């Protein structure tokens, strides 16, 4: 469609319109380029036209010159020929006369003299007979004597002689040349004409030799206007210069110019009567005309180059200008974008107080459009009515230059009559020449900052309320200073307004840290290592006697608002928790004690039996002594023996009671490095009571050199006794025959989960545990025994686990039949040693 239209336009209006449309179709960049290139192209075209015109003229001129030279040379040759033919005629007439013997040698001489005199080109005339003897000779006097052909002498063998022979043989006049180079005698180039003589019989009888000087021929044979116009030369067939002159050395210069690649400015033509041996050559001088043409050409060329150079220079300058313009446009766009994106409103006033400029932010802020504002004078539309007077005063101050550097706060009315707070800053507007042209005012909407400030104040208040309401005391003090940076209400309540309490807490927390860190994992578990330095809080539980409270104190280093390193201490009251913990500990202890009492209760009959033995023995001894004393049949030594025995039995009974008492009574938790074998023998003593009563054989194996364990020995004894008692009961209940009533206690060191432990195992030959109960035996109040309370194993487990150990039970089978049961527990060596030791030492 568009194309068709364009085509039709082209058809209608012609190439000019097409050019226009083409031009408009180009991009501005291309247009620029074309506009830049066109002058250069024009100059180049002009130069080319000039050059071609010059070349054409040159060719024309050379051609014309060629024609002229040709014509002139032909003419000169014609004249030379005619002159030569004329002389030949005269010589031949003389020769005919000599042949006819009409003249004698003296007559010959006179005629010859006349000829030589008349024709300056003629150098000499000689009569030479058939024997080559010179009969007579007439020579111009100016010729050097060496060239004289003396009368009476014979022709010497040479060129002359060969020409002579040729003339003799042909019986025709012969032209020949004597070269200066060839004949040493010849001083000038000479043209010889041998005109043969014939006797009566028509036989050869000699020649008349006419010698012309080439110089003479040239000077007198060629018309003077030709000689004047051209450099005329006579040359032999080999190009040797015989006479005249040539123009050497200018060919090179001419070849540089256009159209002069061939030096066409000369012309050669053979002189006809002589033949090809003599060539007439003319060269045009033409010096002045070449110089003028060349100079013009060069002038035009230099001017064109200058023009082109200036155009290129101009073009480059334009390009720089365009770049500068582009940069300016970019800068302007950037500035405009900046201006538009700026949130600060800008307003320019001229010196009379009229608005000359507002930026979009200003328009957006006020709600008035640019056209509303530019050109307006006070009162401006955005002035609130009630502030008009004040603002007028302000404006006057502004214009008179009395403005404060910190700006001033005003109220601004939006177009929709809404008011907002703004801060304005005024600065003078200086133009490029340094003259003040007005005032630039920037306006910032400070409603939002005001709101934020308010919010900040609110949040600070909330924060303070929270901190104040916290049931922990929070205090911050810089390191090494008495200054209290922050303290909340509880802190003030507890410690007052100074740092004494803070420092006290820090000090106490620091010293007791080691003892309170008894957990095997600290508070930093789970934190990434890099955050440790940041959150290196310290936890400590301390008792503050002034308050009568247990406090959990957490302290950490923080960067205070002013950049100082400060220590924040948060102390929370944990007295109730502490009390609860203590209560729980007491209860656990009581439970253990109670359990031991229960164990003892369950073992009561065994213990009674055990006690009965010494008591029975004592009773018997006493009765025996009494009856003996009554019958007076006793010897003193027998009596002493019996008394000794009695005393021993009393001690035995006392020991049993002591052991039971120590087992039941001792209830203070007391972890210490304990000897395994001591614990075992202690528990074996008690267990043996039960074993004896139930007729169970108890064997034990304690590995040698067992490490000491950090345990509460009475608790471990309790577990051992419990397990052994259970084993004995199980055997009793299974009614095993005597040979199968065995309990074995083994204590061996082991490696479990990469830690060295001591394993205690009690193996019985009883009825085992019902498989469905094997997992439940540790449950509280679960028992497989009729009279059991379900306390024992549950407590055993909690005792073992409180020592970081584990307890396990398994049935022993022999061909599918339960042959016994094995209870085992282990207690780690290392953990109890390394982790518990500090605690033990401190206590």
């Amino acid at each position, binding site marked *: 469609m568009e194309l068709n239209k364009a085509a039709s336009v082209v058809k209608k209006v012609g190439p000019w319109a097409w050019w226009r449309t083409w031009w408009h179709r180009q991009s501005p960049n291309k247009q620029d380029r074309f506009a830049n290139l066109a002058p250069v192209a024009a100059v180049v075209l002009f130069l080319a036209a000039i050059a071609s015109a010059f070349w054409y003229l040159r060719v024309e001129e050379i051609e014309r010159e060629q024609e002229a030279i040709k014509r002139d040379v032909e003419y000169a040759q014609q004249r030379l020929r005619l002159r030569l033919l004329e002389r030949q005629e005269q010589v031949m007439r003389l020769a005919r006369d000599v042949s006819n013997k009409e003249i004698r040698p003296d007559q010959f001489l006179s005629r010859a003299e006349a000829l030589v005199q008349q024709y300056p080109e003629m150098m000499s005339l000689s009569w030479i007979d058939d024997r080559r003897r010179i009969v007579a000779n007439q020579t111009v006097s100016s010729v050097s004597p060496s060239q004289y052909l003396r009368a009476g002498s014979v022709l010497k063998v040479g060129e002359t002689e060969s020409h002579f022979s040729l003339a003799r043989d042909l019986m025709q006049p012969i032209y020949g040349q004597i070269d200066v180079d060839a004949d040493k005698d010849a001083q000038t180039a000479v043209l010889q004409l041998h005109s043969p003589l014939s006797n009566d019989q028509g036989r050869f009888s000699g020649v008349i030799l006419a010698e012309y000087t080439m110089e003479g021929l040239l000077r007198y044979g060629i018309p003077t206007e030709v000689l004047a116009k051209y450099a005329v030369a006579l040359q032999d067939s080999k190009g040797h210069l015989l006479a005249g002159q040539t123009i050497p050395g200018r060919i090179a210069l001419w070849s540089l110019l256009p159209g002069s690649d061939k030096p066409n400015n000369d012309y050669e033509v053979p002189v006809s009567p002589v033949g090809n041996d003599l060539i007439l050559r003319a060269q045009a001088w033409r010096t002045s005309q070449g110089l003028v043409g060349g100079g013009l050409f060069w002038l035009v060329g230099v001017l064109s180059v200058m023009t082109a150079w200036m155009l290129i220079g101009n073009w480059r300058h334009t390009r720089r200008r365009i770049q500068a313009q582009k940069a300016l446009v970019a800068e302007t766009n950037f500035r405009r974008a900046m201006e538009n994106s700026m949130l600060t409103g800008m307003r320019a006033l001229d010196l009379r107080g009229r608005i000359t400029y507002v930026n979009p932010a200003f328009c957006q802020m006020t709600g008035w459009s640019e056209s509303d504002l530019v050109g307006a004078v006070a009162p401006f539309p955005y002035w609130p009515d009630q502030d008009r007077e004040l603002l007028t005063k302000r404006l006057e101050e502004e214009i008179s230059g009395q403005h404060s550097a910190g700006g001033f706060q005003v109220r601004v009315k939006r177009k929709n009559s809404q008011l907002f707070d703004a801060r304005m800053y005024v600065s003078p507007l200086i133009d490029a020449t340094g003259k003040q042209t007005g005032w630039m005012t920037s306006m910032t909407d400070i409603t939002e900052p005001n709101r934020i400030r308010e919010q900040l104040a609110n949040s600070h208040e909330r924060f303070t309320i929270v901190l104040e309401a916290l049931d922990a005391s929070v205090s911050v003090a810089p390191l090494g200073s008495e200054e209290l940076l922050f303290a909340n209400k509880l802190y003030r309540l507890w410690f007052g307004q100074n740092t004494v309490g803070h420092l006290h807490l820090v000090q106490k927390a620091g010293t007791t840290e080691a003892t309170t860190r008894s957990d095997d994992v600290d508070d930093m578990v789970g934190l990434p290592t890099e955050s440790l330095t940041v959150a290196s809080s310290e936890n400590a539980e301390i008792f503050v006697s002034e308050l009568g409270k247990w406090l959990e104190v957490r302290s950490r280093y923080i960067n205070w608002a002013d950049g100082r390193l400060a220590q924040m201490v948060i102390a929370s009251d944990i007295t109730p928790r502490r009390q609860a913990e203590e209560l729980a500990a007491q209860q656990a202890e009581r439970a253990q004690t109670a359990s031991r009492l229960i164990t003892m209760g369950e073992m009561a*009959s065994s213990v*009674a*039996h055990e006690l*009965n*033995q*010494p*008591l*029975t*023995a*004592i*009773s*018997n*001894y006493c*009765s*025996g*002594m*009494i*009856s*003996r004393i009554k*019958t007076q*049949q*006793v010897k003193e030594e027998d009596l002493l023996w*019996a008394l000794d*025995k009695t005393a*021993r*039995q009393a001690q*035995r009974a006392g020991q049993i009671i002591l052991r039971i008492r120590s087992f039941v009574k001792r209830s203070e938790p007391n972890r210490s490095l304990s000897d395994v074998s001591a614990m075992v023998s202690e528990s074996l003593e008690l267990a043996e009571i039960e074993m*004896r*009563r139930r*007729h169970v*054989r108890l064997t034990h194996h304690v590995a040698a050199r067992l490490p000491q364990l950090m345990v509460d020995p009475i608790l471990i004894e309790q577990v051992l006794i419990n397990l052994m008692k259970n084993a004995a009961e199980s055997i009793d209940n299974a009614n095993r025959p*005597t040979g199968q009533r065995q309990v074995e206690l083994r204590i061996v060191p082991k490696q479990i989960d990469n830690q060295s432990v001591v394993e205690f195992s009690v193996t019985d030959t009883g009825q085992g545990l019902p498989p469905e109960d094997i997992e439940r035996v540790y449950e509280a109040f679960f028992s497989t025994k009729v009279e059991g309370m379900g306390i024992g194993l549950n407590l055993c487990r909690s005792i073992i686990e409180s020592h970081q150990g584990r307890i396990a039970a398994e049935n022993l089978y022999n061909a599918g039949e339960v042959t016994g049961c094995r209870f085992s527990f282990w207690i780690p060596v290392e953990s109890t040693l390394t982790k518990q030791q500090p605690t033990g030492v401190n206590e």
Partner: protein
Amino acid sequence: MSLIPKKGTVYVVDDDEAVRDSLQWLLEGKDYRVRCFDSAESFISRYDPREVACLIADIRMGGMTGLELQDRLIERRSPLPIVFITGHGDVPMAVNTMKKGAMDFIQKPFKEEELLGLVERMLDEARDAFAGYQQAASRDALLSKLTGREAQVLERIVAGRLNKQIADDLGISIKTVEAHRANIMEKLNANTVADLLKIALGQNAPKA
């Protein structure tokens, strides 16, 4: 002490050395011969039934228990009277022993009079048992002299059969029965049928 004749032998079996030793001391003070054993096994191996004796044994012992010891003695038809020493919780077991013929049980620690009374009673019984045992042994010796036919005839005489009825039962003549009867009377050293009956029925011979 040796001058005073011993009242009898008391065996003491107890695994507790002190109890054993003190019992010995007590009983020896009352002029009993006391022999102590630390286990039922060693007692069984050394026990002489021909002695007038009694046994005091602990009911709970390592190895063979008192109950087992009783069973073994019953197997041997030993007339040895037994008293078991029991602990506090062993009363049901002690009752069980009494059903099997134990004399009594005493609980530790025991009173002297009680123990001595029991020992005295046991030894009395042991003496009776010993006499009976001796009679039975002599009767057995007499009866073992009879031939098979004579034993058959004696059996029927004791059953109260007449000679004629015996002859019918055995298919022999009255004369033969009478001859056997005379032989029996002679062999058993009996003068009357009543004597014969006493011997045959195993009653103790009348005390002197």
